[in-house]
Protein backbone atom coordinates (compact mmCIF):
# COMPACT_ATOMS: atom_id res chain seq x y z
CA UNK A 1 0.00 0.00 0.00
CA UNK A 2 2.59 2.55 1.15
CA UNK A 3 6.25 1.95 0.41
CA UNK A 4 9.22 4.07 1.38
CA UNK A 5 12.28 2.97 -0.61
CA UNK A 6 15.47 4.15 1.13
CA UNK A 7 14.12 7.68 1.47
CA UNK A 8 16.29 10.37 3.02
CA UNK A 9 15.94 14.06 3.66
CA UNK A 10 18.78 16.50 3.94
CA UNK A 11 18.01 20.21 4.01
CA UNK A 12 20.06 22.83 2.20
CA UNK A 13 21.89 23.75 5.45
CA UNK A 14 23.05 20.10 5.72
CA UNK A 15 20.61 19.34 8.52
CA UNK A 16 19.66 15.72 8.20
CA UNK A 17 15.96 15.20 8.95
CA UNK A 18 15.84 11.60 7.84
CA UNK A 19 18.56 9.08 7.14
CA UNK A 20 17.91 6.22 4.78
CA UNK A 21 14.59 4.66 5.73
CA UNK A 22 12.93 1.72 4.01
CA UNK A 23 9.47 0.80 5.11
CA UNK A 24 6.52 -1.05 3.67
CA UNK A 25 3.07 -0.64 5.15
CA UNK A 26 0.50 -3.19 3.97
CA UNK A 27 -3.14 -2.36 3.28
CA UNK A 28 -5.34 -1.89 6.33
CA UNK A 29 -2.50 -1.60 8.84
CA UNK A 30 -2.56 0.95 11.66
CA UNK A 31 1.10 1.86 11.84
CA UNK A 32 2.39 4.25 14.49
CA UNK A 33 5.63 6.17 14.06
CA UNK A 34 7.19 6.89 17.45
CA UNK A 35 9.97 9.31 18.26
CA UNK A 36 10.79 12.52 20.10
CA UNK A 37 10.50 15.93 18.46
CA UNK A 38 12.92 16.32 15.59
CA UNK A 39 13.27 12.57 15.09
CA UNK A 40 11.90 12.85 11.54
CA UNK A 41 8.32 11.61 12.07
CA UNK A 42 6.63 14.53 10.31
CA UNK A 43 9.17 14.47 7.50
CA UNK A 44 8.46 10.79 6.86
CA UNK A 45 4.68 11.29 6.93
CA UNK A 46 4.76 14.31 4.66
CA UNK A 47 6.73 12.46 2.04
CA UNK A 48 3.71 10.19 1.51
CA UNK A 49 1.59 13.01 0.05
CA UNK A 50 4.38 15.11 -1.37
CA UNK A 51 4.28 17.95 1.17
CA UNK A 52 7.97 17.11 1.61
CA UNK A 53 10.01 15.95 -1.36
CA UNK A 54 12.73 13.47 -0.30
CA UNK A 55 16.29 14.30 -1.36
CA UNK A 56 16.90 10.60 -1.97
CA UNK A 57 14.83 7.49 -2.51
CA UNK A 58 11.19 7.22 -3.59
CA UNK A 59 7.74 6.79 -2.09
CA UNK A 60 5.03 4.69 -3.71
CA UNK A 61 1.36 4.77 -2.84
CA UNK A 62 -0.61 1.86 -4.28
CA UNK A 63 2.21 1.28 -6.75
CA UNK A 64 2.17 4.90 -7.97
CA UNK A 65 5.34 6.86 -7.38
CA UNK A 66 4.81 10.14 -5.47
CA UNK A 67 6.07 12.84 -7.82
CA UNK A 68 4.99 16.27 -9.01
CA UNK A 69 3.20 14.73 -12.01
CA UNK A 70 1.22 12.19 -9.97
CA UNK A 71 0.33 14.39 -6.99
CA UNK A 72 -2.91 15.74 -8.42
CA UNK A 73 -4.24 12.21 -8.75
CA UNK A 74 -2.77 10.87 -5.51
CA UNK A 75 -3.56 13.56 -2.97
CA UNK A 76 -7.38 13.22 -3.06
CA UNK A 77 -6.82 9.54 -2.15
CA UNK A 78 -4.73 10.39 0.92
CA UNK A 79 -6.54 11.88 3.89
CA UNK A 80 -4.60 13.91 6.43
CA UNK A 81 -5.12 14.74 10.09
CA UNK A 82 -3.02 17.50 11.64
CA UNK A 83 -1.57 18.24 15.06
CA UNK A 84 -3.16 21.71 15.17
CA UNK A 85 -6.38 20.35 13.59
CA UNK A 86 -5.95 22.95 10.79
CA UNK A 87 -9.64 23.79 10.63
CA UNK A 88 -10.95 27.09 9.33
CA UNK A 89 -11.90 28.48 12.72
CA UNK A 90 -14.39 31.05 11.47
CA UNK A 91 -16.20 28.57 9.23
CA UNK A 92 -18.93 26.23 10.40
CA UNK A 93 -18.29 22.61 11.36
CA UNK A 94 -20.34 21.52 8.33
CA UNK A 95 -18.26 23.61 5.91
CA UNK A 96 -15.04 22.33 7.44
CA UNK A 97 -16.04 18.71 6.95
CA UNK A 98 -17.42 19.33 3.46
CA UNK A 99 -14.18 21.03 2.41
CA UNK A 100 -12.57 17.60 2.69
CA UNK A 101 -14.46 16.69 -0.49
CA UNK A 102 -13.29 19.73 -2.47
CA UNK A 103 -10.94 17.90 -4.86
CA UNK A 104 -13.91 15.86 -6.13
CA UNK A 105 -16.11 18.92 -6.67
CA UNK A 106 -16.25 20.77 -9.99
CA UNK A 107 -15.20 24.40 -9.75
CA UNK A 108 -18.61 25.81 -10.65
CA UNK A 109 -20.09 23.98 -7.66
CA UNK A 110 -17.17 24.74 -5.33
CA UNK A 111 -17.17 28.53 -5.78
CA UNK A 112 -20.76 29.13 -4.60
CA UNK A 113 -20.38 26.28 -2.10
CA UNK A 114 -23.00 24.03 -3.71
CA UNK A 115 -22.08 20.60 -2.30
CA UNK A 116 -24.35 17.89 -3.72
CA UNK A 117 -26.83 16.16 -1.43
CA UNK A 118 -24.80 12.93 -1.35
CA UNK A 119 -21.76 14.79 0.00
CA UNK A 120 -23.80 16.62 2.62
CA UNK A 121 -25.32 13.30 3.64
CA UNK A 122 -21.86 11.77 3.96
CA UNK A 123 -20.60 14.69 6.04
CA UNK A 124 -23.50 14.21 8.45
CA UNK A 125 -22.86 10.46 8.72
CA UNK A 126 -19.18 11.02 9.43
CA UNK A 127 -19.88 13.67 12.05
CA UNK A 128 -22.29 11.31 13.75
CA UNK A 129 -19.72 8.52 13.56
CA UNK A 130 -17.10 10.68 15.34
CA UNK A 131 -19.59 11.43 18.10
CA UNK A 132 -20.75 14.98 17.33
CA UNK A 133 -24.34 16.19 17.51
CA UNK A 134 -26.54 17.76 14.78
CA UNK A 135 -26.42 20.97 16.82
CA UNK A 136 -22.68 21.19 16.11
CA UNK A 137 -23.22 21.48 12.34
CA UNK A 138 -23.80 25.23 12.23
CA UNK A 139 -21.33 26.12 15.00
CA UNK A 140 -18.07 27.77 14.17
CA UNK A 141 -15.08 25.46 14.55
CA UNK A 142 -13.58 27.97 17.02
CA UNK A 143 -16.42 27.26 19.45
CA UNK A 144 -15.45 23.60 19.82
CA UNK A 145 -13.03 22.08 22.32
CA UNK A 146 -9.74 20.67 21.08
CA UNK A 147 -11.01 17.09 21.15
CA UNK A 148 -14.14 18.06 19.23
CA UNK A 149 -12.06 19.97 16.68
CA UNK A 150 -9.92 16.92 16.04
CA UNK A 151 -13.10 14.84 15.60
CA UNK A 152 -14.09 17.29 12.88
CA UNK A 153 -10.58 16.85 11.46
CA UNK A 154 -11.08 13.08 11.33
CA UNK A 155 -14.47 13.45 9.64
CA UNK A 156 -12.90 15.78 7.07
CA UNK A 157 -10.08 13.33 6.38
CA UNK A 158 -12.55 10.52 5.61
CA UNK A 159 -14.84 12.59 3.31
CA UNK A 160 -13.43 11.15 0.09
CA UNK A 161 -13.11 7.62 1.55
CA UNK A 162 -9.33 7.61 1.08
CA UNK A 163 -7.54 4.24 1.19
CA UNK A 164 -4.70 5.90 3.14
CA UNK A 165 -4.85 8.39 6.00
CA UNK A 166 -1.83 10.24 7.42
CA UNK A 167 -2.16 11.45 10.99
CA UNK A 168 0.61 13.87 11.96
CA UNK A 169 0.69 13.95 15.78
CA UNK A 170 -3.11 13.94 15.91
CA UNK A 171 -3.29 14.09 19.71
CA UNK A 172 -0.23 16.16 20.62
CA UNK A 173 -2.43 19.18 21.39
CA UNK A 174 -4.98 17.24 23.43
CA UNK A 175 -5.26 16.15 27.06
CA UNK A 176 -4.77 12.43 27.85
CA UNK A 177 -8.50 11.67 28.07
CA UNK A 178 -9.30 13.35 24.73
CA UNK A 179 -6.19 11.75 23.20
CA UNK A 180 -7.47 8.25 23.93
CA UNK A 181 -10.94 9.07 22.62
CA UNK A 182 -9.63 10.58 19.41
CA UNK A 183 -7.23 7.69 18.72
CA UNK A 184 -10.00 5.20 19.48
CA UNK A 185 -12.23 6.94 16.94
CA UNK A 186 -9.50 7.13 14.33
CA UNK A 187 -8.73 3.44 14.74
CA UNK A 188 -12.38 2.50 14.63
CA UNK A 189 -13.10 4.55 11.50
CA UNK A 190 -10.05 3.11 9.77
CA UNK A 191 -10.96 -0.45 10.74
CA UNK A 192 -14.53 -0.10 9.46
CA UNK A 193 -13.31 1.10 6.07
CA UNK A 194 -10.16 -0.98 5.77
CA UNK A 195 -8.14 2.24 5.65
CA UNK A 196 -4.38 2.16 6.02
CA UNK A 197 -3.19 4.64 8.65
CA UNK A 198 0.25 6.05 9.21
CA UNK A 199 0.12 7.93 12.49
CA UNK A 200 2.93 9.70 14.31
CA UNK A 201 2.86 9.88 18.10
CA UNK A 202 5.28 10.66 20.86
CA UNK A 203 3.45 8.88 23.69
CA UNK A 204 4.72 5.32 24.06
CA UNK A 205 1.68 4.12 26.02
CA UNK A 206 -0.76 5.35 23.38
CA UNK A 207 1.26 3.71 20.65
CA UNK A 208 1.28 0.42 22.57
CA UNK A 209 -2.47 0.36 23.01
CA UNK A 210 -3.56 1.46 19.51
CA UNK A 211 -0.95 0.35 16.99
CA UNK A 212 -0.84 -2.79 14.87
CA UNK A 213 2.78 -2.04 14.34
CA UNK A 214 5.25 0.39 15.82
CA UNK A 215 8.02 2.05 13.87
CA UNK A 216 10.44 4.10 15.93
CA UNK A 217 12.70 6.85 14.68
CA UNK A 218 15.62 8.40 16.48
CA UNK A 219 17.69 11.19 14.97
CA UNK A 220 16.23 10.33 11.60
CA UNK A 221 17.12 6.67 11.78
CA UNK A 222 14.83 3.68 12.03
CA UNK A 223 15.58 2.08 15.41
CA UNK A 224 12.60 -0.22 15.88
CA UNK A 225 10.06 -1.92 13.65
CA UNK A 226 7.72 -4.54 15.05
CA UNK A 227 4.48 -5.34 16.86
CA UNK A 228 3.61 -3.40 20.04
CA UNK A 229 4.15 -6.52 22.13
CA UNK A 230 7.87 -6.42 21.31
CA UNK A 231 8.17 -2.72 22.07
CA UNK A 232 9.31 -3.04 25.71
CA UNK A 233 10.64 -0.58 28.27
CA UNK A 234 14.20 -0.93 26.99
CA UNK A 235 13.11 -0.08 23.44
CA UNK A 236 11.24 2.94 24.78
CA UNK A 237 14.26 4.17 26.75
CA UNK A 238 16.47 3.79 23.71
CA UNK A 239 14.19 6.18 21.85
CA UNK A 240 14.85 9.24 23.92
CA UNK A 241 17.98 11.18 24.72
CA UNK A 242 19.17 11.61 28.25
CA UNK A 243 17.32 14.54 29.77
CA UNK A 244 19.09 17.67 28.63
CA UNK A 245 17.82 20.01 31.32
CA UNK A 246 18.52 19.27 34.95
CA UNK A 247 16.56 21.28 37.44
CA UNK A 248 18.87 22.91 39.92
CA UNK A 249 17.83 21.84 43.39
CA UNK A 250 20.91 22.46 45.50
CA UNK A 251 21.97 25.99 44.64
CA UNK A 252 19.31 28.70 44.41
CA UNK A 253 19.83 31.27 41.64
CA UNK A 254 20.60 34.17 43.94
CA UNK A 255 23.68 32.49 45.33
CA UNK A 256 25.03 31.95 41.85
CA UNK A 257 25.20 35.70 41.32
Amino acid at each position, binding site marked *: MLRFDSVGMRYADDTVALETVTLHIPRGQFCVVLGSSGAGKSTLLRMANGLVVPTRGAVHVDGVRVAASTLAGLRPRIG*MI*HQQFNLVLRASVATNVLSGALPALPLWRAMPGLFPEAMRQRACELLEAVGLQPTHLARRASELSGGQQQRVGIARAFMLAPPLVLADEPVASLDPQASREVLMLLRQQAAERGTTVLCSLHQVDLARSFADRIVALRHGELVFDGPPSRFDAAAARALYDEPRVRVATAAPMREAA
Partner: protein
Amino acid sequence: MTARTPNPLAPSGAAAWHIAPPFGARGVVGLLLALLLCFAAGQRVEMGRMFALTGEGLMAAVGLRDSAQVSSGLAGIARSMFPVQISERTEVARIEGFDRARLPFFAHIETETVHEPRLDPTTLQMTESVVEREVLVEPLGYAWHVLAKMVETLEIALWATLLAVAMSLPLAWFSARNYSPHRATYHLARGLVSLLRAVPELVSALLLVLAYGFGPIAGVLALALHAAGFLGKFYAEDIETADDKPQEALRAIGASPLKVMRFAVLPQVMPQFIAYTLYVLDRNVRMATVVGLVGAGGIGQELKGRYDMYNYSHVGTILLAIFLTVFLLDQLAARLRRRFA
Protein backbone atom coordinates in the same frame (compact mmCIF):
# COMPACT_ATOMS: atom_id res chain seq x y z
CA MET B 1 18.42 17.16 14.20
CA THR B 2 20.87 19.85 15.27
CA ALA B 3 21.66 21.38 18.65
CA ARG B 4 21.42 18.22 20.64
CA THR B 5 23.92 19.53 23.15
CA PRO B 6 23.41 22.85 24.96
CA ASN B 7 24.93 25.73 23.05
CA PRO B 8 28.27 26.55 24.75
CA LEU B 9 28.13 30.12 23.40
CA ALA B 10 24.80 30.96 25.03
CA PRO B 11 25.22 33.22 28.06
CA SER B 12 24.58 31.56 31.36
CA GLY B 13 24.66 32.47 35.01
CA ALA B 14 23.65 35.71 36.66
CA ALA B 15 24.82 37.97 33.82
CA ALA B 16 22.24 36.40 31.50
CA TRP B 17 19.38 37.40 33.80
CA HIS B 18 18.69 40.92 32.63
CA ILE B 19 15.56 42.69 31.41
CA ALA B 20 16.25 45.72 29.24
CA PRO B 21 14.50 49.05 30.09
CA PRO B 22 11.80 50.15 27.60
CA PHE B 23 14.02 52.80 25.99
CA GLY B 24 17.56 54.07 26.25
CA ALA B 25 19.58 57.19 25.49
CA ARG B 26 19.47 56.48 21.77
CA GLY B 27 15.68 56.45 21.81
CA VAL B 28 15.56 59.82 23.61
CA VAL B 29 18.00 61.43 21.17
CA GLY B 30 16.02 60.01 18.23
CA LEU B 31 12.80 61.44 19.63
CA LEU B 32 14.39 64.89 20.11
CA LEU B 33 15.69 64.83 16.54
CA ALA B 34 12.24 63.92 15.24
CA LEU B 35 10.73 66.80 17.23
CA LEU B 36 13.27 69.24 15.78
CA LEU B 37 12.43 68.03 12.29
CA CYS B 38 8.72 68.59 12.97
CA PHE B 39 9.46 72.16 14.10
CA ALA B 40 11.46 72.88 10.97
CA ALA B 41 8.67 71.50 8.80
CA GLY B 42 6.08 73.53 10.72
CA GLN B 43 8.05 76.70 10.06
CA ARG B 44 7.84 76.05 6.34
CA VAL B 45 4.08 75.52 6.29
CA GLU B 46 3.44 78.71 8.35
CA MET B 47 2.19 76.93 11.45
CA GLY B 48 3.24 79.92 13.57
CA ARG B 49 1.00 82.28 11.63
CA MET B 50 -1.81 79.73 11.77
CA PHE B 51 -1.69 79.61 15.57
CA ALA B 52 -1.51 83.41 15.81
CA LEU B 53 -4.50 83.98 13.51
CA THR B 54 -6.55 81.25 15.18
CA GLY B 55 -5.77 82.74 18.56
CA GLU B 56 -6.91 86.19 17.43
CA GLY B 57 -10.09 84.68 16.03
CA LEU B 58 -10.84 82.88 19.27
CA MET B 59 -10.21 86.06 21.27
CA ALA B 60 -12.56 88.00 18.99
CA ALA B 61 -15.17 85.29 19.39
CA VAL B 62 -15.17 85.61 23.19
CA GLY B 63 -15.08 89.40 23.05
CA LEU B 64 -11.45 90.04 24.03
CA ARG B 65 -10.77 91.75 20.71
CA ASP B 66 -12.75 93.96 18.41
CA SER B 67 -12.22 92.08 15.19
CA ALA B 68 -10.00 89.48 13.66
CA GLN B 69 -9.39 88.32 10.13
CA VAL B 70 -10.34 84.70 10.76
CA SER B 71 -13.54 85.25 12.70
CA SER B 72 -14.88 87.95 10.38
CA GLY B 73 -14.10 85.76 7.38
CA LEU B 74 -15.91 82.78 8.87
CA ALA B 75 -18.82 84.95 9.98
CA GLY B 76 -19.12 86.34 6.46
CA ILE B 77 -19.38 82.86 5.02
CA ALA B 78 -21.92 81.82 7.63
CA ARG B 79 -24.05 84.91 7.01
CA SER B 80 -24.18 84.32 3.29
CA MET B 81 -24.86 80.59 3.60
CA PHE B 82 -27.60 80.69 6.22
CA PRO B 83 -30.48 80.34 5.98
CA VAL B 84 -29.81 77.65 3.41
CA GLN B 85 -31.77 77.61 0.18
CA ILE B 86 -34.73 75.23 0.33
CA SER B 87 -37.29 76.65 -2.10
CA GLU B 88 -37.05 77.32 -5.79
CA ARG B 89 -38.59 80.34 -7.54
CA THR B 90 -38.89 80.35 -11.30
CA GLU B 91 -40.43 83.00 -13.50
CA VAL B 92 -43.43 81.43 -15.20
CA ALA B 93 -42.68 83.16 -18.47
CA ARG B 94 -39.36 81.36 -18.65
CA ILE B 95 -40.75 77.86 -18.22
CA GLU B 96 -41.24 76.15 -21.53
CA GLY B 97 -44.64 74.56 -22.11
CA PHE B 98 -45.92 75.68 -18.72
CA ASP B 99 -49.26 74.05 -17.84
CA ARG B 100 -51.18 76.07 -15.29
CA ALA B 101 -53.54 73.15 -14.57
CA ARG B 102 -50.80 70.71 -13.66
CA LEU B 103 -48.47 72.32 -11.18
CA PRO B 104 -45.72 70.26 -9.49
CA PHE B 105 -46.41 68.97 -5.96
CA PHE B 106 -46.80 71.60 -3.24
CA ALA B 107 -46.16 74.36 -5.77
CA HIS B 108 -48.15 77.55 -6.15
CA ILE B 109 -47.99 80.64 -8.29
CA GLU B 110 -47.21 84.01 -6.79
CA THR B 111 -47.34 87.41 -8.39
CA GLU B 112 -44.47 89.63 -7.48
CA THR B 113 -43.76 93.19 -8.32
CA VAL B 114 -40.25 94.07 -9.30
CA HIS B 115 -38.76 97.52 -9.58
CA GLU B 116 -36.59 97.44 -12.62
CA PRO B 117 -34.38 100.26 -13.84
CA ARG B 118 -34.95 100.66 -17.54
CA LEU B 119 -33.69 102.91 -20.29
CA ASP B 120 -36.50 105.03 -21.70
CA PRO B 121 -36.00 104.96 -25.51
CA THR B 122 -37.62 108.37 -26.01
CA THR B 123 -35.83 110.38 -23.34
CA LEU B 124 -32.71 108.23 -23.14
CA GLN B 125 -32.98 108.49 -19.35
CA MET B 126 -32.89 105.67 -16.82
CA THR B 127 -36.35 105.35 -15.33
CA GLU B 128 -37.59 102.94 -12.76
CA SER B 129 -40.51 100.92 -13.95
CA VAL B 130 -42.65 98.56 -11.91
CA VAL B 131 -43.10 95.18 -13.51
CA GLU B 132 -45.56 92.57 -12.34
CA ARG B 133 -44.64 89.01 -13.07
CA GLU B 134 -45.78 85.58 -12.06
CA VAL B 135 -43.38 83.17 -10.43
CA LEU B 136 -43.77 79.50 -9.75
CA VAL B 137 -42.86 78.85 -6.13
CA GLU B 138 -41.85 75.33 -5.17
CA PRO B 139 -41.35 75.40 -1.37
CA LEU B 140 -39.08 72.34 -1.40
CA GLY B 141 -37.89 72.76 -4.95
CA TYR B 142 -34.20 73.28 -4.38
CA ALA B 143 -33.96 70.73 -1.58
CA TRP B 144 -35.56 68.24 -3.93
CA HIS B 145 -33.08 69.11 -6.66
CA VAL B 146 -30.15 68.66 -4.26
CA LEU B 147 -31.59 65.35 -3.12
CA ALA B 148 -31.75 64.14 -6.71
CA LYS B 149 -28.12 65.19 -7.22
CA MET B 150 -27.16 63.50 -3.96
CA VAL B 151 -28.80 60.29 -5.14
CA GLU B 152 -26.79 60.53 -8.35
CA THR B 153 -23.66 60.99 -6.23
CA LEU B 154 -24.51 57.89 -4.21
CA GLU B 155 -25.08 55.97 -7.42
CA ILE B 156 -21.67 57.06 -8.68
CA ALA B 157 -20.10 55.93 -5.41
CA LEU B 158 -21.98 52.62 -5.47
CA TRP B 159 -20.90 51.74 -8.98
CA ALA B 160 -17.36 52.94 -8.37
CA THR B 161 -17.22 50.57 -5.39
CA LEU B 162 -18.70 47.64 -7.34
CA LEU B 163 -16.21 48.10 -10.17
CA ALA B 164 -13.36 48.55 -7.70
CA VAL B 165 -14.17 45.28 -5.92
CA ALA B 166 -14.47 43.47 -9.24
CA MET B 167 -11.10 44.81 -10.42
CA SER B 168 -9.29 44.38 -7.12
CA LEU B 169 -10.10 40.70 -6.54
CA PRO B 170 -7.94 39.43 -9.43
CA LEU B 171 -5.38 42.12 -8.60
CA ALA B 172 -5.24 40.89 -5.00
CA TRP B 173 -4.76 37.30 -6.20
CA PHE B 174 -1.79 38.28 -8.31
CA SER B 175 -0.28 40.63 -5.75
CA ALA B 176 -0.47 38.14 -2.88
CA ARG B 177 2.98 36.59 -2.67
CA ASN B 178 1.67 33.14 -1.78
CA TYR B 179 -0.88 32.92 -4.62
CA SER B 180 0.70 34.83 -7.48
CA PRO B 181 1.67 32.20 -10.08
CA HIS B 182 5.08 33.74 -10.75
CA ARG B 183 7.46 36.33 -9.32
CA ALA B 184 6.97 38.42 -12.45
CA THR B 185 3.17 38.50 -12.11
CA TYR B 186 3.60 39.37 -8.44
CA HIS B 187 5.81 42.38 -9.15
CA LEU B 188 3.65 43.43 -12.09
CA ALA B 189 0.48 43.32 -10.02
CA ARG B 190 2.11 45.15 -7.10
CA GLY B 191 3.31 47.82 -9.49
CA LEU B 192 -0.13 48.24 -11.00
CA VAL B 193 -1.69 48.46 -7.54
CA SER B 194 0.75 51.20 -6.54
CA LEU B 195 0.17 53.06 -9.80
CA LEU B 196 -3.61 53.00 -9.36
CA ARG B 197 -3.29 54.36 -5.84
CA ALA B 198 -0.72 56.94 -6.82
CA VAL B 199 -3.03 58.81 -9.22
CA PRO B 200 -5.44 60.99 -7.22
CA GLU B 201 -9.13 60.71 -8.14
CA LEU B 202 -9.33 64.38 -9.04
CA VAL B 203 -6.51 64.09 -11.57
CA SER B 204 -7.79 60.92 -13.23
CA ALA B 205 -11.30 62.45 -13.29
CA LEU B 206 -9.91 65.45 -15.19
CA LEU B 207 -8.35 63.14 -17.79
CA LEU B 208 -11.39 60.85 -17.96
CA VAL B 209 -13.69 63.83 -18.53
CA LEU B 210 -11.67 64.46 -21.68
CA ALA B 211 -12.16 60.83 -22.74
CA TYR B 212 -15.79 60.22 -21.74
CA GLY B 213 -17.14 63.77 -21.65
CA PHE B 214 -18.81 65.58 -18.76
CA GLY B 215 -21.05 63.42 -16.63
CA PRO B 216 -21.06 60.52 -14.21
CA ILE B 217 -19.05 58.00 -16.32
CA ALA B 218 -15.80 59.86 -15.72
CA GLY B 219 -16.61 60.11 -12.01
CA VAL B 220 -17.38 56.42 -11.64
CA LEU B 221 -14.22 55.35 -13.44
CA ALA B 222 -11.95 57.80 -11.63
CA LEU B 223 -13.16 56.63 -8.23
CA ALA B 224 -13.15 52.95 -9.23
CA LEU B 225 -9.55 52.99 -10.47
CA HIS B 226 -8.19 54.59 -7.32
CA ALA B 227 -10.25 52.35 -5.02
CA ALA B 228 -9.21 49.24 -6.96
CA GLY B 229 -5.59 50.04 -6.13
CA PHE B 230 -6.45 50.57 -2.47
CA LEU B 231 -8.54 47.40 -2.17
CA GLY B 232 -6.05 45.32 -4.19
CA LYS B 233 -3.27 46.22 -1.79
CA PHE B 234 -5.19 45.57 1.39
CA TYR B 235 -6.97 42.42 0.19
CA ALA B 236 -3.58 41.03 -0.88
CA GLU B 237 -1.99 41.78 2.48
CA ASP B 238 -4.81 40.01 4.29
CA ILE B 239 -4.51 37.01 2.00
CA GLU B 240 -0.77 36.85 2.72
CA THR B 241 -1.18 36.98 6.48
CA ALA B 242 -4.12 34.56 6.69
CA ASP B 243 -3.44 31.50 8.85
CA ASP B 244 -1.70 28.92 6.65
CA LYS B 245 -2.73 25.82 8.61
CA PRO B 246 -6.20 25.34 7.09
CA GLN B 247 -4.74 26.16 3.68
CA GLU B 248 -2.17 23.41 4.13
CA ALA B 249 -4.91 20.98 5.10
CA LEU B 250 -6.73 21.60 1.81
CA ARG B 251 -3.55 21.62 -0.26
CA ALA B 252 -2.58 18.28 1.30
CA ILE B 253 -5.68 16.60 -0.14
CA GLY B 254 -5.10 18.17 -3.55
CA ALA B 255 -7.60 21.05 -3.65
CA SER B 256 -6.78 23.60 -6.36
CA PRO B 257 -5.53 27.06 -5.33
CA LEU B 258 -8.85 28.66 -6.25
CA LYS B 259 -10.71 26.25 -3.97
CA VAL B 260 -8.17 26.75 -1.18
CA MET B 261 -8.70 30.51 -1.54
CA ARG B 262 -12.48 30.13 -1.41
CA PHE B 263 -12.67 27.70 1.53
CA ALA B 264 -9.54 28.28 3.64
CA VAL B 265 -8.69 31.96 3.04
CA LEU B 266 -11.97 33.73 2.32
CA PRO B 267 -13.72 32.78 5.58
CA GLN B 268 -10.69 34.08 7.49
CA VAL B 269 -10.39 37.43 5.72
CA MET B 270 -14.10 38.13 5.19
CA PRO B 271 -14.55 40.52 8.15
CA GLN B 272 -11.55 42.57 7.02
CA PHE B 273 -12.71 42.53 3.40
CA ILE B 274 -16.10 43.85 4.45
CA ALA B 275 -14.51 46.54 6.59
CA TYR B 276 -12.26 47.70 3.74
CA THR B 277 -15.11 47.66 1.24
CA LEU B 278 -17.35 49.71 3.52
CA TYR B 279 -14.53 52.18 4.05
CA VAL B 280 -14.08 52.46 0.29
CA LEU B 281 -17.82 53.03 -0.17
CA ASP B 282 -17.72 55.74 2.48
CA ARG B 283 -14.67 57.35 0.91
CA ASN B 284 -16.20 57.12 -2.56
CA VAL B 285 -19.30 58.99 -1.42
CA ARG B 286 -17.11 61.79 -0.08
CA MET B 287 -14.83 61.79 -3.11
CA ALA B 288 -17.78 61.62 -5.52
CA THR B 289 -18.75 65.09 -4.32
CA VAL B 290 -15.23 66.29 -5.06
CA VAL B 291 -14.77 64.81 -8.53
CA GLY B 292 -18.00 66.58 -9.49
CA LEU B 293 -16.02 69.81 -9.23
CA VAL B 294 -14.20 68.95 -12.44
CA GLY B 295 -17.43 68.06 -14.21
CA ALA B 296 -17.62 64.38 -13.43
CA GLY B 297 -21.28 64.43 -12.44
CA GLY B 298 -23.11 64.35 -9.14
CA ILE B 299 -23.59 66.99 -6.50
CA GLY B 300 -20.07 68.36 -6.93
CA GLN B 301 -20.97 69.70 -10.33
CA GLU B 302 -23.94 71.53 -8.77
CA LEU B 303 -21.72 72.79 -5.95
CA LYS B 304 -19.16 74.18 -8.35
CA GLY B 305 -21.84 75.88 -10.46
CA ARG B 306 -23.49 77.54 -7.46
CA TYR B 307 -20.16 78.55 -5.95
CA ASP B 308 -19.10 80.20 -9.21
CA MET B 309 -22.42 82.12 -9.30
CA TYR B 310 -21.91 83.31 -5.67
CA ASN B 311 -25.11 81.51 -4.62
CA TYR B 312 -23.77 80.81 -1.15
CA SER B 313 -27.14 79.89 0.32
CA HIS B 314 -27.37 77.16 -2.30
CA VAL B 315 -23.83 76.09 -1.41
CA GLY B 316 -25.01 75.89 2.21
CA THR B 317 -27.81 73.52 1.24
CA ILE B 318 -25.40 71.31 -0.66
CA LEU B 319 -22.84 71.16 2.14
CA LEU B 320 -25.58 70.33 4.61
CA ALA B 321 -26.81 67.55 2.33
CA ILE B 322 -23.30 66.11 2.02
CA PHE B 323 -22.82 66.20 5.77
CA LEU B 324 -26.14 64.46 6.43
CA THR B 325 -25.38 61.78 3.84
CA VAL B 326 -21.92 61.03 5.21
CA PHE B 327 -23.31 60.92 8.74
CA LEU B 328 -26.10 58.50 7.79
CA LEU B 329 -23.66 56.36 5.83
CA ASP B 330 -21.39 56.12 8.88
CA GLN B 331 -24.29 54.79 10.93
CA LEU B 332 -25.18 52.28 8.22
CA ALA B 333 -21.59 51.10 7.85
CA ALA B 334 -21.25 50.59 11.60
CA ARG B 335 -24.42 48.50 11.56
CA LEU B 336 -23.21 46.37 8.64
CA ARG B 337 -19.83 45.82 10.28
CA ARG B 338 -21.44 44.62 13.50
CA ARG B 339 -23.64 42.30 11.49
CA PHE B 340 -20.95 40.63 9.39
CA ALA B 341 -17.73 40.90 11.36
